[in-house]
């Protein structure tokens, strides 16, 4: 049913339709509305689940870890510092192959404190063995959660659904919330592999000495790579069942004929598409490659689609301090070194700490890379706020 609702409410509604048994969370802006809404759904008896209000994100992650190990379908959500506080558990969850679903309402990282959106938080745990899916809008954010459970429970990998804080979580948009029966038909009940149960005593979380540890990492890495197939299948299956495309590995917009290819992910792709349309009217051919699955990273797909593009620009809301663009590094790595040395891959950092990314900013970016490649540039940087002393 099409509803005009807040992004957080949409996520809460679809998470409830996925029938998690245990929900545990700790409040942090901008994640709060999601768990508030879920607590109401549980409180009103519309979802038969245990809702555990814990004393920290660290415990929230630990509670869902324990519950998942006991065979429950679980859910948690967080942002920013909360995700960083969870980091230790985040690694454990994937190492223990627990199919937990987490929403990351993307927010900047302290210091300085900022409650506003960028994607530095989920980037901080990009190597943890979690599938990371980035939503473009609230419909996709909602749809990705339904897919996330299916992907997680087929691959025994945890899934983080990343949606831009405020821009999506607090935005009111029309979102189609499926019927319970549709979701039930799409998402079978959770069948855990190993659980703690006195009827079948087994150890979960044994330690591995140097004879065994490395293989666990290799297997996890291979599982992440192999999850590509599941992500695509589940996305295709979703399109068939629900009648709309959502998720998947990557998406493109007017890319085929484009002279300049923009690569990005998250909600900013909406602004990018608008600009592409405007530029098209002006006779410029610009296209978009949108990454939905950031981990596993769709290297092969990116190569196949961009291999003839000589002018690529990567726009991202995160940075590896001392290195540069993170997504840009990944994109540069997607091309064999020896091939087409004259291919330009420019890197722009934008929107950190909630700085607006305007159409004008993006237009400037395109015009800039049409002239020359850009190794690294902060888009919309206020140079007047920076003195020589600071540098």
């Amino acid at each position, binding site marked *: 049913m099409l509803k005009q609702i807040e992004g957080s409410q949409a996520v809460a509604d679809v998470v409830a339709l996925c029938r998690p*048994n*245990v929900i*545990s969370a700790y409040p942090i802006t901008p994640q709060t509305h999601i768990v508030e809404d879920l607590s109401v759904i549980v409180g009103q008896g519309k979802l*038969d*689940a*245990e809702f*555990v*209000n*814990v*004393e*920290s994100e*660290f*415990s929230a992650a*630990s*509670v*869902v*870890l*324990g*519950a*998942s*190990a*006991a*065979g*429950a379908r*679980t859910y948690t959500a967080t942002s920013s510092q909360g995700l960083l506080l969870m980091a*230790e*558990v985040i690694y*454990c969850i994937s190492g*223990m192959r627990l199919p937990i679903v987490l929403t990351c309402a993307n927010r900047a990282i302290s210091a300085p404190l900022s409650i506003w959106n960028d994607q530095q938080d989920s980037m901080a745990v990009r190597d943890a063995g979690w599938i990371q899916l980035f939503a473009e809008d609230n419909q996709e954010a909602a749809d990705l959660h339904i897919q996330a459970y299916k992907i997680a429970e087929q691959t025994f990998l945890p899934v983080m659904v990343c949606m831009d804080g405020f821009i999506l979580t607090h935005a009111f948009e029309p979102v189609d919330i499926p019927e319970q029966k549709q979701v039930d038909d799409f998402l079978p009940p959770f069948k855990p592999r190993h659980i*703690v*149960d*006195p009827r*079948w*005593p*087994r*150890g*979960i*979380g*044994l*330690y*591995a*000495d140097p004879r*065994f540890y490395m293989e666990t990492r290799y297997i996890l890495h291979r599982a992440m790579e192999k999850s590509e197939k599941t992500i695509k299948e589940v996305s295709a299956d979703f399109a068939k069942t629900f009648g709309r495309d959502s998720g998947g590995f990557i998406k493109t917009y007017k890319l085929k004929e484009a002279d300049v290819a923009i690569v990005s992910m998250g909600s900013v792709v909406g602004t990018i598409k608008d600009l592409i349309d405007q530029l098209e009217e002006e006779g410029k051919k610009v296209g978009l490659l949108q990454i939905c699955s950031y981990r596993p990273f769709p290297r092969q797909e990116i190569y196949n689609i961009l291999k003839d593009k000589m002018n690529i620009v990567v726009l991202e809301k995160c940075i590896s301090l001392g290195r540069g663009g993170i997504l840009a590094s990944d994109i540069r790595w997607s091309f064999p070194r020896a091939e087409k040395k004259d291919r330009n891959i420019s890197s722009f950092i934008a929107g950190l700490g909630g700085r607006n990314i305007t159409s004008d900013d993006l237009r400037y970016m395109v015009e800039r890379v049409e002239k020359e490649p850009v190794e690294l540039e902060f888009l919309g940087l206020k140079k007047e706020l920076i003195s020589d002393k600071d540098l």
Partner: protein
Amino acid sequence: MNEKAEELNRVEKKDLFASGHRACGGCGQALAARLVHDAAGENTIACVATGCLEVFSSPYPDPSWRIPFLHSLFENPAAVASGVEVAYKALKKGPVNIIAQAGDGSTADIGFQCISGMFERGHNVLYVCYDNEAYMNTGVQRSSFTPYGAWTSTTPMGNKTRKKNLPLIAADHGIPYVATATVDDFKDLQRKVKTALSIEGPKYIHILVPCPLGWGHPGDLTVKICRLAKDTGLFPIFEIIDGKVTNVQKIPVKVPVEEYLKPQGRFRFLFKKGVPTEEVAEIQKIANQNIERFNL
């Protein structure tokens, strides 16, 4: 004796925590873990913190556990056990005994917040602290359960602070059952585990477990040192049921703290050529305060 009392006082030996693990000879924690799980029985899930117990009992591929064992991190067994408990509730499974357990470093320091949360939320979980009064697994560093005067590798001049009193802190969360115990009295320890598991809600049992390596005493003195800890008043044995201190174990003949301190290498420097220093008097004062406070 009626049937229930008989069952409570029976010493259980089921080897649910099997022999063949890698603990040191005379390890108080290994003994305590066996007693706790044999008392709890087969229908039990052990949620264990990183630490000595986890390391000596759970190397892949040969763990020592004949009951389900769940380990993830150093500081989170209370939160993980909370998760297991709510999962059982949500999946309408059970009843099952869930025992979160950790050493004193995890319990008193890094996992303190998780434990407080578990108590406050009222999960039906028994939390067992194996207190060997320092971070033994990493090489005898000080924890906030390290007693006054003790040498550790990070208090080379002796610890200057007193032990955090977690049994009382636990009780002040309003939980229904708190107890202290040591590994010299199998019957008492197992009775307390059985009693705790018969009560709905969060429970806390604090067990003193000597560590021959960290305390510097021969392995065959583990049981004797426990008795001395009790008989000096340094480790009072009691239960707190619904907030009331009860079943305090009286000391038949009070022993001076010197008797407890002398066999342990960690207190050796408190005696100069056999003569006790001022610190020993300070430790005697702590024992006397305990004796008075709990009417030992």
